[in-house]
C-alpha cells in the first residue's frame, strides 16, 4: 500500500511537470514575451517601454536553458509556479494570487450547491428511470435526456434570464451579494440553469450504471429470495452503483474551485470563472497560465484521491 501511494504520487508529480512544460510551450515559445507585451501595451509603443514592462514581469531573459543555463524563462517558469509565486497579471499589473483568493469564495458558493443539488435531483431520477427499464417510461426518460443534452448551455442561460428573470420577474437576472440572507435569491437562477443543463447527461450516465448493476448475479439472488423490487433497487443496485458515481463526483470536485465560466459571467458572480473570462478578453496570458496550472494541480490531486479512495469503498480493489 505504501509503495503504491508513493508511486502514484510520483506519477502525479511527473504529470504536473508535463503540464508545466506544455504551458511553457503555449505561452512562451508560441507567443513569446514580446507578443504578450505588445498585446498588453498596444502596437505602437517604444521598445524601451516594452523592455521595462518585460523586466517588471520577469520576462526579460532568454527562453531556453541552452541559451543561458542559470537565468532562463523555462526554469524560472517552473520555479515560480511550483512555489505558487504567480506574479503580476499581464493586463493590469495586479497580483494574480489576490484575484484568485477573492474569486474562490463566490465560485464555491455557486459550484458546491450546484454539485449537491445536481446529485440530489439526478440520482433519484435515474433510479426511477432504471426501475422502469425497457418500458415506456424508460424510453421517454432517455428521449428527454437526449433532448435536454442537445440544447446549448448558452441557450439555457439566455432563455432562463429572459423568461424567469425578465418576463416573470421571479429572481434577479444577475448579481451577487456576500450577505447570506440575500445570496440565495441571486443564486437561484444560475443554480436552476446549471442543474437543468447537466441533467441530461447525468441521468443517462447514472441510468447506465444502475442498469449494469441490476443484471448482476447478486441482484438475481436477492430477487430469488423474495426481496421486493424497491428494496433491490435501493439496497443492492444503488449501493453498488455508487462506486462509478463516486468516481465521477470526486473527479468533479477539483473543478468546483475553478468555478463555472459561463454561469459566473452571465449571472455576474465575481468568481474564478469570471476571472478567466476577463483574462481571455484582455489577453491576460499570465492569469490564464496560472488558472490552467491550478486547475490541473487540483485535478491531479483529485485523481490520486479517487484512486486511493477506491480501496476504502470497494474491498475488491487491492493495491499492488
Amino acid at each position: 500500500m505504501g509503495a503504491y501511494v508513493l508511486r502514484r504520487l510520483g506519477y502525479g508529480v511527473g504529470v504536473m511537470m508535463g503540464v508545466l512544460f506544455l504551458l511553457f510551450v503555449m505561452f512562451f515559445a508560441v507567443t513569446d514575451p514580446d507578443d504578450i507585451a505588445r498585446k498588453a501595451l498596444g502596437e505602437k509603443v517604444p521598445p524601451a517601454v516594452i523592455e521595462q514592462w518585460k523586466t517588471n514581469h520577469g520576462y526579460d531573459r532568454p527562453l531556453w536553458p541552452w541559451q543561458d543555463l542559470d537565468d532562463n524563462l523555462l526554469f524560472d517558469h517552473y520555479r515560480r509556479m511550483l512555489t505558487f509565486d504567480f506574479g503580476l497579471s499581464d493586463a493590469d499589473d495586479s497580483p494574480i494570487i489576490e484575484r484568485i483568493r477573492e474569486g474562490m469564495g463566490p465560485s464555491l458558493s455557486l459550484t458546491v450547491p450546484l454539485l449537491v443539488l445536481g446529485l440530489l435531483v439526478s440520482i433519484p431520477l435515474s433510479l426511477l428511470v432504471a426501475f422502469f427499464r425497457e418500458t415506456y417510461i424508460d424510453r421517454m426518460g432517455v428521449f428527454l435526456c437526449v433532448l435536454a443534452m442537445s440544447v446549448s448551455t448558452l441557450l439555457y442561460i439566455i432563455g432562463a434570464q429572459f423568461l424567469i428573470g425578465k418576463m416573470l420577474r421571479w429572481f434577479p437576472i444577475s448579481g451577487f451579494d456576500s450577505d447570506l440572507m440575500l445570496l440565495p435569491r441571486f443564486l437561484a437562477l444560475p443554480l436552476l440553469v446549471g442543474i437543468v443543463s447537466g441533467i441530461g447527461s447525468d441521468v443517462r450516465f447514472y441510468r447506465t450504471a444502475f442498469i449494469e448493476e441490476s443484471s448482476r448475479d447478486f441482484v438475481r439472488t436477492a430477487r430469488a429470495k423474495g426481496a421486493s423490487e424497491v428494496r433491490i433497487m435501493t439496497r443492492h443496485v444503488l449501493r453498488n452503483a455508487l462506486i462509478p458515481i463516486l468516481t465521477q463526483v470526486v473527479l468533479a470536485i477539483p473543478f468546483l474551485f475553478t468555478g463555472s465560466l459561463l454561469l459566473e459571467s452571465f449571472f455576474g458572480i465575481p468568481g474564478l470563472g469570471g476571472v478567466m473570462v476577463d483574462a481571455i478578453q484582455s489577453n491576460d496570458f499570465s492569469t490564464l497560465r496560472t488558472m490552467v496550472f491550478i486547475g490541473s494541480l487540483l485535478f491531479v490531486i483529485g485523481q490520486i484521491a479517487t484512486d486511493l479512495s477506491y480501496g476504502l469503498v470497494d474491498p475488491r480493489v487491492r493495491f499492488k
Partner: protein
Amino acid sequence: MTGVEPYMFSNLGTLLLLAGIGFTARVVRRNRLWREAATSLWRRRRLALCVLGVYFAIALLDSVAWKGGVPVDAVGVLPNAPYSIVDRIFLGTVEASYSAPFASVEFYGGSSLRNPGTHPLGTDIIGRDVLYMALKGARVALLIGGLTSLIAIPLALLFGVGAGYFGGRFDDFVFFLISTLASMPGFLLLIALIMAMGRGTLSVCVALGVTSWVGFCRLSRAETLKLRELDYVRAARVLGVSEPGIIFRHILPNLAHLIVITFVLMFSGLVLSEAVLSWLGIGVDGSWGQMIDGARDELSREPIVWWNIAAAGTALFTLILSVNAVGDAVRDVLDPRTQGDAP
C-alpha cells in the same frame, strides 16, 4: 483573374468529400456486415438521418462558389466576389434595419422595406436576412465537426494503435502524454491553445482536435492491446506478414466500428463547444454561436427582437438532436457490447 483563392479550396474540398462519400458507400455496399448495419440504422433513425441529409445538402450548396452572373446594380453586391448557391438565392435582399418575420415595414422608423415580405424569418440589426444567416451556419457547424474529427481521429489512432501494438517505451510516452493532457481542464486548455495560436477557423479546429483526441486514443490503445493477442493476428505474424501489414489488414479494420461511433458521438460536443467559444469571442466566423451571441442583447429591446436567436437556436438544436439520436443508434448497431440494449 488569376491566382488561387479560398473559394477554390472550398470547391476542391467539396469534390474530394463527395468522392470520399462515394467510395465509402461502395465499401459499405460490398461488405455484408456494414450493409446490414447501415440498413438497421436507416430503419431505426429515418427522420434524424433525413434531417442530417438536409443540413448536409445546405452545407454543400454553400460550399460550391463561383464568380460572375450576379446583378451588378443590386444593393450590397460585389460583382467580382465569389458567391455560393445559397448566397445567390439571397443576393441583394439586404435591408436598412430590423424587420419582423414577413413584415413589410422596417421595425424601427416604420419606413417600407426594399424587399417586403421576402424575409420569412426577419432581419437582424444591420438588415441581413436571418434565414440566410441560419442556413450559412450549417456549413460552418459541419466544417467544425468534420475538420476537427479529421484532425483528432487520425492523431488518436496514430498514438493509440502505435502504443498498443508496439508497447514498451513508446507506450509509456503515449500514456504519459495522455495523462498530462487529460489533467489539464479541457475547456481552459482549449481557450489557452486558441489564444496561443491566434483566432480563425483552422486554429479553432486544431485546438478542438488537440483537446478531444485523448479519449479515443485511450480507447484505441486498449482495443489494440486486446486485438494483438488474438489468434489470427498471431497467425499472421507467424506467417511472416509485415508489421504495417498486420496493422492495416488486421488491427485497423477491427477498430473501424469504434472510429464511426467516436466520430458521431464527438460531433455534437464539438459543435456545442464552438458555440461557447463564439460567446468568448474566439469562435468561428458565421457560426450559430456567433449569431446567438450577437442576438443576446436584442432580447432586451422593446418590442422584443426574438426571431434572431430563435432561428440560430433552433438550427443548432435540431442538428445536435439529430446527431445525438443517430449517434445512439450507431452505437447500438455497431458496438457488440450494447447489442440488444434499450432503443
